[in-house]
Structure formats: C-alpha cells, structure tokens
C-alpha cells in the first residue's frame, strides 16, 4: 500500500452477514482522521497539519472497508506522509502494548482513539487499521486497555501567557474569550468571572498577558484552558522603546563582575 494511504476495516457484530451501522462508520472514520491529524501535529512540533484525507475506495459489504488517501492542502509545502504515518502506527502500537505510555502518546490522541473504539463490543465486533505497511487490530481488549490508561487533566496555579484576544462569548452567563498566542498553543480558552467582563471587552483584538490557573491535558506542555485572574494590557510594538535603550542601562549592576561571574555568585553562593 502506498505511503499516503490508510485503510480502516470495520466488522459489524452479529456475524459475517451483519451490516455496519452508518452512524458508527462515520463516527469511527471521523475519529481516525482526527487521531491522524493529532499525530501529524505532534510530529510537526505543534503546528496544525495542512493535510486532508480523501476517500480512495469504499466498500459497504461486511466488513466495511474505507481507504483514505492523504494529500497536502493547496499551496502548502509537501508533507512526508511516510514519516507521520509511521509515527501514527508506532503510537497506536504503543497504546496497544507498551508497559508505560511513551511521551509521544498525547491526551488528544487517546481521546480520539477512545472515540474510534467506542462502538466495539456493541454494534462493532472489531476494527483494523492498516497504515505504513502495518496492521493494528482494535478489539474489546484494545478498548479495555485504553479505558485503563489514567489520563487526567492537571491544574497549575499562578501562571501567565501572552496572546491576542480574537474571540469572545459574553452571552448571558457565559464569560469566555479565546486567546491566540504567538507561540506554543494555537489557542487557549479563557474563562473569567463577571467582575472582569469590562476588562475582557476592552481586551478584544488586543495583545495581552492573561494571568490565572492553567488547565492542561494529560502530559500536555501547553494549557488548553485558563481560569482568568487578571488581564494585563501590553504595549503595541510601535510604542515599545527601541531595545538599544537597554544596552548599558546599568553599567555597574554587577559591581564590576562579568555577567557570568555575577550569576555564578547567585547560583552557587
């Protein structure tokens, strides 16, 4: 099978003549595509993959078999499908067998895989994924193993992050805005109390630093949600003094020591 193809085979419960429930087929297909996108994102250093999947072939006879063909979006640089399809295969095999989950298995990947195997044991007997020259069986054992992986969110207090406020919902009792940082997470949902409503409205479209308690998915490096304690307005770049104004601003700051000697003294006494 070529590097850019992925095959999903779904066998319905109830014997060879049983047909796959349409809703389950679409649910599992969607979950697989999302799981693939998550691995692509991880292998690309957190950037959203500019990849989509087209249906290359489809068979409704039991089992239902769908083959998806990956392609790079128009005008986007070519993606090495072999690399990230192998990464996907490695991830799903780790989920199936590893004693300890490796770092590249993310909470989002587990979430999509759980969605993918949700009908297994009910309307679906088994599913198989063929990718990068390898096949993985998704059965009840795989589903039970996924369920046993404790992947809980964590909360860290007193954090902060910069970004631009580009979306907001203040309808009724809802108080949330979406922050788009320049690096790190693509976006972070920020939930604030009504006391901060006016400040939040003022922040719309502006570059700010949001302070608060960060919520992280299991193992995630960047937060996906913030319980906001404050919004700090930052100067537009045009109003920030030229950086050379810092050069030599405090010539005696180290008492004549080199910077590294000064820092060495702080760190080692």
């Amino acid at each position: 099978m070529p590097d850019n193809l992925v095959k999903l085979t779904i066998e319905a419960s109830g014997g060879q003549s049983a047909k796959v429930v349409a809703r389950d087929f679409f649910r599992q297909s969607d979950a697989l595509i999302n799981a693939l996108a998550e691995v692509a994102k991880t292998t690309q250093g957190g950037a959203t993959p500019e990849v989509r999947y087209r249906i290359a072939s489809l068979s409704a006879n039991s089992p239902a078999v769908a083959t998806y063909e990956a392609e790079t979006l128009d005008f986007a640089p070519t993606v090495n499908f072999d690399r990230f399809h192998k990464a996907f295969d490695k991830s799903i095999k780790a989920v199936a067998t590893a004693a300890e989950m490796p770092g590249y298995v993310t909470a989002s990947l587990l979430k999509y895989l759980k969605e993918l195997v949700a009908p297994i044991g009910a309307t679906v007997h088994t599913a198989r994924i063929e990718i990068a020259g390898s096949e993985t069986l998704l059965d009840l054992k795989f589903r039970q193993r996924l369920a046993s992986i404790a992947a809980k969110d964590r909360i860290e207090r007193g954090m902060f992050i910069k970004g631009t406020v580009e979306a907001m919902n203040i309808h009724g009792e809802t108080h949330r805005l979406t922050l788009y940082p320049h690096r790190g997470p693509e976006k972070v949902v920020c939930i604030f109390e009504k006391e901060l409503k006016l400040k939040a409205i003022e922040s719309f479209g502006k570059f700010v630093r949001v302070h608060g308690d960060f919520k992280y998915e299991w193992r995630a490096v960047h937060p996906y949600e913030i319980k906001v304690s404050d919004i700090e307005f930052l100067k537009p770049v045009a109003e920030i003094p030229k950086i050379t104004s810092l050069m030599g601003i405090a010539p005696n700051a180290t008492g004549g020591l080199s910077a590294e000697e000064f820092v060495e003294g702080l760190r080692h006494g």
Partner: protein
Amino acid sequence: MAESRRPEACIDSCVIISYIIGGSDRTTDDRAALNGFFNDVYAQNVSVIFPTILRAELLQCNLTAEQMGAFDLMTHLPNFDELPINSSISALAAEIRSHYMTRNRLDRSESLIALSDSMFIATAIVEDCPKLLTHDGDRMPPAKPRKLLGLHAPIAGKYPLHICKPGSLQLGLPQ
C-alpha cells in the same frame, strides 16, 4: 506546512545582564554578537523565551524601578516571552540533575548541575527550543563544577539541546 510555533532560543540570565551592563565584560566580537542578537529580538526576527528565574536574578542587580520598567517593556514584545515555571519544567529539571548526579557518583565522568542551570535547560527542552544561549563558562575561573557551555548534546543522555553563546542573524551567527 504551518509556521512552526517553537521558540528559536532560550536565554540565560547572564545574556541579558551582560547587555544591560553594556557588554563591557565581553570581547569585541562577542559584544557585537550580543548587540546583533538583541537587535534581532527587537526586529522580531527571532523568537526568544526565558524562565521567570531570569527576572528574579535580574532583580539581584539592584536596578532602579525605571531600569526594571525598561526590561518589563521588552517583555511586551510578542517574540520575547517570559515563562512561569510549571510542573513539566520542574520535573524535567529534576530529571536532568538526577542524570548528572548519578553519572558523577558512578564514575565521575560528569559534573553536577546547579538547580537554576537545570531550570533554564529544562525550560528550553520542554518548549522544544533548539538552543540555550549563555555566556556561562565563556571566561570564568575553573572553580565552578559545571559550566553550561561545557554541556553538549544529548543533554542528560537524550535531549538534543544546543548550548551556545548568543549571536546575530546579520553576523551569520548563532554559533
């Protein structure tokens, strides 16, 4: 492919401190490289991060409120990002220190790593940053057990972080 959201460099406290004292502690070339680096930061040509420990160490320089304010304004630049220490950074810093401590106990093949040093290294690694910029070990007496510039990838046996002195894009650096 979308633009990478990884920072390009993490800076150690001595880099900013050297800058605020005017680079008087550097050679002519290193001073030029330091200036070039910060000009690149201001022009937003490079995405830089640093852990909040840097601010704490900068405060030890007894800067006036005005001088500290000038530094604060720099952190308003979108590409000059102060990061709080979270549990991922703390845990990795502990892992790094433990690695070198174990090696030191086993065969003395590695020196120990100071707590703050490990925090800077861990911040860079957690944020998937390829470089840590420092002057630590550049022109220092050999008394210190471990100099950051003397650490080579793979850090702690597995992380591909490059530790080097700051440089500028214009001068064909970083090194």
